[in-house]
């Protein structure tokens, strides 16, 4: 299946079907899923009945749920993007400071592994790698000639990755193995993000929506200023412990698939960004 069509499909459906229940969405997704050879999936992708009702009841009815295959292909797209980004950066002579090459070499190794794991999990349902444009298309970023830009994009990709995996955890709740793998990747992205942020002089964690990325990427931090968790408003509750700034740092927030795609579209050739 064509990656662009895949991403467009799920983004459009997400916008169109925000009132669908999880089960409705799953059924509506069958038309998309039938393009994949389900029988070839090596892991148990079929929902086990155990948690389905609980998950359905506890999910907000306004929340879109993608199928596990869609989630894994969505994650694979982001991992392809990160892998190509670091590979090209490391291949560009003189871009990365000598003292930082080990760090980026390790991160590349991890992203390579993540790509391999997701492809293994998806089998023949894995989408092909799209073509990336790290100049941000019309943004004309000097990504591979200016180390500061490269570092800023690295931070943006890692923080987006953390939010993207978090946003899809609920869609994998019926698949214990896949959920655990996704969580095991998710926290490694968190380690990467922390490291890159501190290399750029930022804190390892996200305060409110603050960031030092190009303005075009403010969406990466939208909603990180949330202070309400499980319906409990923590604002003003911790004056002696860093106040609301620390409250927002203590919790990372998710992004929906559509929100992530609206960021990733800037770097994927042939994928239009929402206007």
């Amino acid at each position, binding site marked *: 299946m064509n990656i662009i069509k895949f991403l467009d499909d799920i983004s459009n459906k997400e916008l169109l079907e925000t009132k669908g229940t999880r089960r409705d969405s799953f059924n509506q997704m069958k038309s998309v899923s039938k393009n994949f050879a389900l029988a070839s999936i090596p892991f148990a992708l079929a929902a086990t009945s155990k948690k389905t009702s609980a998950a359905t009841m506890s999910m907000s009815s306004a929340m879109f749920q993608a199928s596990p295959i869609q989630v894994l292909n969505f994650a694979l797209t982001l991992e392809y993007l990160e892998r190509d980004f670091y590979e090209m950066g490391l291949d560009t002579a003189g871009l990365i400071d000598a003292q930082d090459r080990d760090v980026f070499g390790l991160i590349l190794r991890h992203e390579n*592994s993540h790509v391999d794991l997701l492809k293994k999990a998806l089998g023949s349902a894995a989408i092909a790698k799209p073509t990336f444009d790290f100049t941000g298309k019309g943004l004309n970023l000097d990504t591979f000639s200016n180390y500061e830009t490269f570092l800023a994009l690295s931070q943006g990709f890692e923080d987006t990755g953390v939010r993207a995996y978090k946003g899809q*955890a609920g869609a994998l709740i019926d698949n214990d193995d896949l959920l655990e793998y996704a*969580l*095991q990747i998710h*926290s490694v992205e968190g*380690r990467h993000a922390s*490291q890159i942020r501190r290399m750029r002089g930022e804190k390892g*964690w996200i305060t409110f929506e603050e960031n030092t990325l190009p303005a075009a990427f403010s969406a990466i931090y939208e909603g990180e200023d949330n202070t309400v968790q499980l319906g409990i408003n923590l604002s003003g509750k911790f004056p002696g*412990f*860093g106040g609301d700034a620390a409250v927002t740092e203590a919790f990372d927030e998710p992004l929906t698939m559509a929100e992530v795609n609206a960021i990733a579209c800037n770097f994927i050739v042939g994928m239009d960004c929402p206007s």
Partner: protein
Amino acid sequence: MKKPMINVESFHDGREGKMNSRRQFLKIGGLAVVGSSLFLYSCEEEGITDEEINALDAKGVNNKRVFNLGKGDLAILNYAYILEQLEAAFYTEVVNGSYYKGITDAKEKQILTDLWYHEVIHRDFLKTALNSIASPGRVAPDLEFNFSSVKFGDRDNVLLVSQILEDTGVSAYNGAGNLLESAEYLLIAGKIVSVEARHAAAIRDLIRPGTTYFAGDDVLVDLLGTGIAYDKATSPRDVLAAVAATGFLETKLITNNIPTN
């Protein structure tokens, strides 16, 4: 009276021999009457009857010796609350210690200050959340800790313990994810675990600055032969055993029935 023991005991794997396990459990429950420990336990519905739980609660909670960790999501939230209590208590000691007070590097000080803030926030948030969904007897009590083995004036020692706690926190939340039934709680665990991972990387980078130690091969694992690129996902029983092994917890944990699948 003997000093409370720190020990996690595993009596069965949670899937077989429930009747046998129940008898063993009740024997342990009997021991609680003469011991001075606070016992934490969790029972699946097949393992023990409500009457038996109530009898143990009546005997134990009143004497502050037995606490029912609960079952299902409640047990996992209580488990997270226990881990956050440990972290918060540790960093509270750190910021009152001579190493922290003597730090001259502003960024190093900020990292430890923030970790203290964040863990206190996690702890108090989980306590509030637990109290909003469960009666007081079902929420883990304030635990007592003993950090006498930590040298709070020694940078290396403080950072090493911090690293262990943060790495353990990451693997604990990762291992608890698929034990949660509720997508809302899963999301909350996800919101916290990535912050713990950010902490772990920051502490590791204080130990070996500018190296690959922030996500080192010493702490990550391989999955399906694709390479060492994944955080661990550790079961509650193994995490609690590791916590017990630190000797920091002045509370005996019995976890023979914490959810395992």
